[in-house]
C-alpha cells in the first residue's frame, strides 16, 4: 500500500535528480524510473484503486499533478540538454573572421582592355559599329589615302617601321577607316580599335607599339558642331562632368583639325604637374574629314561631310589611373596586372 503522504517528497526528489541529468539517455532512464510501467509514480496510480472511495478523486488529482510536474521537468531538461549540445557543436566550428577567405583564383583583364572596352562601349552605345583591320598595311592605306603626300613633312610626325617599300606597320588605325569607306557607302558611324606601331625606342612616355581607338562619322549633314557635341558626351562620361575645350591643330587627314582638352581632373584647373600648369589635359585629336580623303576613297566630297577622332588608349589609362610609365603595360608583372581586378 502506497503512502500518499510521501508522494510530494518523491516528486521533490525526482525534480532534483532530473535537474542534474547530463544527457538525453539519462532522462530516458529517469522517465522509466518514475513514469514507466513499474515506475515510482505509476505505482501510486495503481494504488488508487485500493484507496477509500471518498478520497479517491482528490488522491487521483494529486498523482496526476505529480506526473505532470515530472513530465514538465523532463521536457525542460531535455530542451536544455539539446541546446547545450548544439552550442558545443557550433562552438567547435568557430572561425577567425580576420583570416582572409579562400580565393577562387579569379584573374584580371589587362587594364588596357578594360579602358578600351569602356571607350568602345560608350561609342557602340551611340550606334557606332566596331570594325577591325590588319596591322601590316599598304602605305597607300596608311598614308597616301589619308592625304600624307610622299616626301611631305607630315610623314615625319609618325616615325614609321617599314616592312618593304610600300608595306608598313600601321602608324595609326586610320587605314581601317579607309578600308571601311572603300567597302561601304555613307552614312557611316564606326570606331576602329587596335595596335599601332611607331619607330620609337621605349621610355617612360614612348612605346614602339600601343593601342588606339579612332572613330569616324560620315553623312550629308555632319558638322564640326556635332563633332564637338558627340565628343563632349563621350569625354564627360569617361572623365566626369567637367569643362572641355577644342584647340586648332594639324593632322593631314582632317581639316579643320582640333585637339580636345578636358579640365585637369587632378587640380580642377588650378595648374599642377599633371597638366603642366595649364589647367587642361589633352585627351584626343579630331577634326572634319579632309575632302582629299573622300576623293581617295571615292566619296563625293561636296555631298558628304564627316568627322573623325583618334586617341591613345595607354594615354587615357595613364591619366585615369595615375600610371607614370607606359612600359608597365607591356612588362606583364603580375604585381601590376593584379592591381586592376
Amino acid at each position, binding site marked *: 500500500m502506497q503512502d500518499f503522504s510521501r508522494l510530494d517528497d518523491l516528486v521533490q526528489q525526482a525534480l532534483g535528480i532530473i535537474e542534474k541529468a547530463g544527457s538525453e539517455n539519462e532522462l530516458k532512464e529517469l522517465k522509466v524510473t518514475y513514469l514507466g510501467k513499474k515506475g515510482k509514480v505509476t505505482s501510486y496510480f495503481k494504488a488508487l484503486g485500493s484507496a477509500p472511495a471518498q478520497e479517491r478523486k482528490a488522491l487521483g488529482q494529486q498523482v496526476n499533478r505529480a506526473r505532470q510536474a515530472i513530465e514538465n521537468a523532463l521536457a525542460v531538461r531535455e530542451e536544455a540538454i539539446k541546446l547545450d549540445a548544439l552550442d558545443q557543436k557550433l562552438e567547435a566550428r568557430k572561425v577567425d573572421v580576420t583570416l582572409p577567405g579562400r580565393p577562387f583564383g579569379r584573374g584580371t583583364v589587362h587594364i588596357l582592355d578594360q579602358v578600351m572596352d569602356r571607350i568602345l562601349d560608350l561609342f557602340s552605345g551611340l550606334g557606332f559599329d566596331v570594325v577591325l583591320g590588319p596591322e601590316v598595311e599598304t602605305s597607300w592605306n596608311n598614308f597616301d589615302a589619308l592625304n600624307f603626300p610622299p616626301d611631305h613633312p607630315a610623314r615625319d610626325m609618325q616615325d614609321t617601321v617599314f616592312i618593304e617599300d610600300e608595306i608598313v606597320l600601321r602608324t595609326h588605325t586610320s587605314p581601317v577607316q579607309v578600308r571601311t569607306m572603300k567597302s561601304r557607302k555613307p552614312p557611316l558611324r564606326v570606331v576602329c580599335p587596335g595596335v599601332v606601331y611607331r619607330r620609337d625606342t621605349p621610355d617612360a612616355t614612348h612605346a614602339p607599339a600601343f593601342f588606339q581607338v579612332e572613330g569616324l562619322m560620315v553623312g550629308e549633314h555632319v558638322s564640326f558642331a556635332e563633332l564637338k557635341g558627340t565628343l563632349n558626351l563621350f569625354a564627360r562620361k569617361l572623365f566626369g562632368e567637367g569643362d572641355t575645350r577644342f584647340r586648332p591643330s594639324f593632322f593631314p587627314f582632317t581639316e579643320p583639325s582640333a585637339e580636345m582638352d578636358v579640365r585637369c581632373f587632378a587640380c580642377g584647373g588650378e595648374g599642377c604637374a599633371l597638366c603642366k600648369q595649364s589647367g587642361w589635359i589633352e585627351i584626343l585629336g579630331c577634326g572634319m574629314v579632309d575632302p582629299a580623303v573622300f576623293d581617295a576613297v571615292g566619296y563625293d566630297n561636296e555631298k558628304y561631310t564627316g568627322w573623325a577622332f583618334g586617341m591613345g588608349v595607354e594615354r587615357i589609362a595613364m591619366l585615369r589611373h595615375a600610371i607614370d610609365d607606359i612600359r608597365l603595360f607591356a612588362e606583364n608583372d603580375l604585381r601590376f*596586372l593584379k592591381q586592376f581586378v
Partner: protein
Amino acid sequence: MRISLNWLGDFLDIDISPGEIARRLTLAGIEAYAEAFGIMACEVVEVGDHPHADKLKVCRVFDGTGYRQVVCGAPNTRKGMKTALVTPGAILPGGIEVKTAKVRGVVSEGMLCSEKELGLSDEHSGIIEFDASFVPGGSVHRSLKDYADVVIELDLTPNRPDCLSHLGAARELGAILGRHIKPVSTGLDKVLDGAPVSGLAEIEVKAPDKCPRYCARIIEGVKIGECPGWVRARLEAAGIRSINNVVDATNYVLLELGQPLHAFDLDRLAGAKIIVRPADPGESFTTLDGITRKLSRDDLVIADADRPVALAGIMGGLDSEVTKETTRILLESAWFEPRSIRRTSKRYDLNTESSRRFSAGVDPEGIDRAADRCAALISDWAGGRVARGRIDVYPKPFKPIETDLRMDRLARILGKDIEAGEAAAVLEGLDFSVTESDTNTLHVRIPGFRPDVEREIDLIEEVARLYGYNKIPATRPVGYLKHPEIAKELIFERKTRQALVAAGASQAYNYAFVAPDFPERLQAPADHPVADLVQAANPIKVEFSALRTTLLPGLLYNVQTNVNQRAESVFLFEIGTVFKNTPRNDENLPVERRVVGGVLWGSAREEKWFGRSRDMDFYDAKGAVETILGGLKVDLGIVTWKKANQPWLNPHAAASLMMDHSVAGWVGEILPSVCSEFDVPWPVFAFELDIGIIGLAGKETIEYKSLPKFPSIRRDVALIVDEDLDAASIIEAAEGSGAGFVAHLDVFDVYKGETIPPGKKSIAIKIVYRSNEGSLESSRIDEENKVLVQALRDKLNAEIRDS
C-alpha cells in the same frame, strides 16, 4: 621655334602678358609656352636649406613671367630681396653659358649673380641687391637692357613654316589680337653705294625645277668681327650662338623673316661663278660640319666653276665659308623645291635651320626682300658697300593661288553661320587679300608665305580657328536608330578573355616585335611555320626587328619577369596578332591571325594559411583550353585531341586540338632546353589556339534538352590496363560495348603504384545508366553492366578489379 618678345616688339605693339600671349596663340592652334630669358631682375620669394650642403640655399624666384628654382651660395641671399637672375641658355659677359644643372643633387634653373659676374664692377661679396624700383623681369642695368627678355616657345605643327620667323609669329599674333603689324623696312636704301652688281659674279641655274629662283647680292669691303650686343642677345634668345658679324646677319634674317641665306666668300668662288646643278654621280663634298659625303644625282648642289660649294638649302662647304680674311661677300637668297631639300636632308640625316625651312616651304615672295635686308645688316655691322642691284635668276615668277570661299559651305562644315564680312576680316588680318566679295562668296588671294593654304577647306579652317573653336556650338547628331555591328572577332576575343579570367588567368600584352633568332631558340627548324618571319626593313634594334609568329616567346619572357619577382604561380594569357610572311594575300600583305596563348608555371594557387597547393601540370593547361572552348560555346563533342609534335614541346606531354580534321591549336609541356634558353624554370606549360577557327565553331544559340524524367543508376568499374592505353580508347570501348541504357561515361580515377604491376595502370570509370521509358531495376542494370565489363575485358585485354 623660339620667339624673343623684345624682337616681336619690332613688329607689333604688345600690351598683354607673356602668359596671355602663349594662351592666345595656343587657342589659335600655335601651341606656345612663355619663359623669361636672359639677364633680368628677379624677386626671391622663398629661401630653403639645401638638403646636402650647408652653405647653399634653394631659392624660389619670380622672374616676371613665372617661378623657378635656383640654387645659390651667396651669404646675403634672403627672402624678399630683389637681385639679378641669369637664365639657362644665356651667356655671361665672360662668355660662359648658364645651363640648367643639378647643384649637389638639386636642380637649379639659372643663377643669381654678383656685379662682377655681370661685368658691372669688381664687387663679388654677394649677389646684387636691388632697390624696390627694380621690377622682376626688367633690366638690371642700362648696358644689359637688351638681355632682359621673354622667350615664347612655339611647338609648331609641320603645316606652319610661316611661324618659323619673328615676322610670321608677329603676323599670327596680330591677327589674333586684331591689329596690323608694322611694315618691314630693309634699311638698304641708306647703304646702297657700291659698284653695279653685274660683272662682279655670274649665276647659272641648271636645275630650274629644283631651284625656281636664285637671287644674290654682293657686299665688298667688309671687315669680319663681332656683331652688336643687342643682336647677340636676340640670337641667344632664339637659341643660336653668335659666330661673326656676317654669319650672324644671315642668321638674324633667317630668324626675322624666315628666309635662309648663305654668305659665300666671293674671292674663294672659282671663276666668281655660282652654278646651281644636280650633283654629279660619284661627286663628294665636305660640309661645314667637317663630314665628307658622297652625293647622289638626286641632290642639288651650289657649285663654283670647279666644285660644289654648298649642299643647296642645307649646309655650306668648308672651302667657301666666310673667314677672318674675307672682304667680299656673295649673299645667296633662293627658293628651293621643298621635296628635293627634304629628300637630301633625310638621305644624309642632316637637319639644319635652313633645311627645316626650305623643306616646309619659304615665302617665294620674300626672297629679294630678305637679300636686301641681310645686305643692309652686313653693311651696318661689318662695314663694306653693297653693290647696286641684285643678280636674280627667276625665269618663272611665282603665281599666288586664288580660291573661292562659299559661306554656305563653311556653315555646313562648321555647323555655324559666320557673316561674310567677319570671315573676310579674319582672312585680311592674316594678310590674305579678299579681292571680291558678295554675301555668299569670298574670292581670296593666298600669300606666298602660307604654303599650307590652297583650297576652300583650308580657308574654312583659317576662319574657324581665328573665329574660335570654342565659339562654335556643340550639338548632337540626329539620325536613324540602329544597332551597332561589333566585329565578330572582337566578340570571340571578349568571350575568350572572360572565360580565362574566371578560371584564374591574368591577361598580358606584349609588343609584336621579336628578335629574329627566336624560332631557333624554340628549336624550330628553318622550314617550320614559326620561322616564316615578317621582318622590318628599318628596325629600332635587333630585338624589335621581326614580327612574332607565335605568342610563346613573349609569354615565356613574362614568366621570367614574374619568377624574378618571386611569384609563386604564373598563369598568364595573351590575345594578339601573329604574322606569317608567306603566302601573301591579294594586297601583297602577310597573313595575320588572332590567337590566344597561355603559360602556366608554379603552384596552382598561391601559398596561403590553409596550406600550399599542388603544382600545375599539363592537365591545368588543357583545362584552360577547355575553358576557352566552353566560353565560346564549342561543343566538346566536335573536338578531338591528338598527340602533337611541336619542336618546343615534350613529345610525351603535348597535344593538338583538332576541329574538323584541321589543327586549331596546341597545348603541352615546354622542353627543359627551351625553358633554359628563355631563362625560366622547368616545367612550364603552354597553349596557343586560333581564335578565328574556334570562335566560328561555337554555337550561336543552345537548344534545350528536356530533363530526364526517371532516375539514373551509377556503376563503377576499375580496370587494370597497359600503361600506354589512353582514356579515350577505354571510353570508346565502353561506348561500343553493346550494353543498353548507358547515358554517360567518365573516368574518375587513374592510379599507378605499388599494388599495380609494372607497365600497367588502374583506371576507374563510372557508368550512368538511365532509361527514358521508366525506372530501371537494379538487377537489370547489373546485367547490362556485365555486358559492358565483358566488352572491356575482351577489347582492351583489361583485368577487372573488384568493385
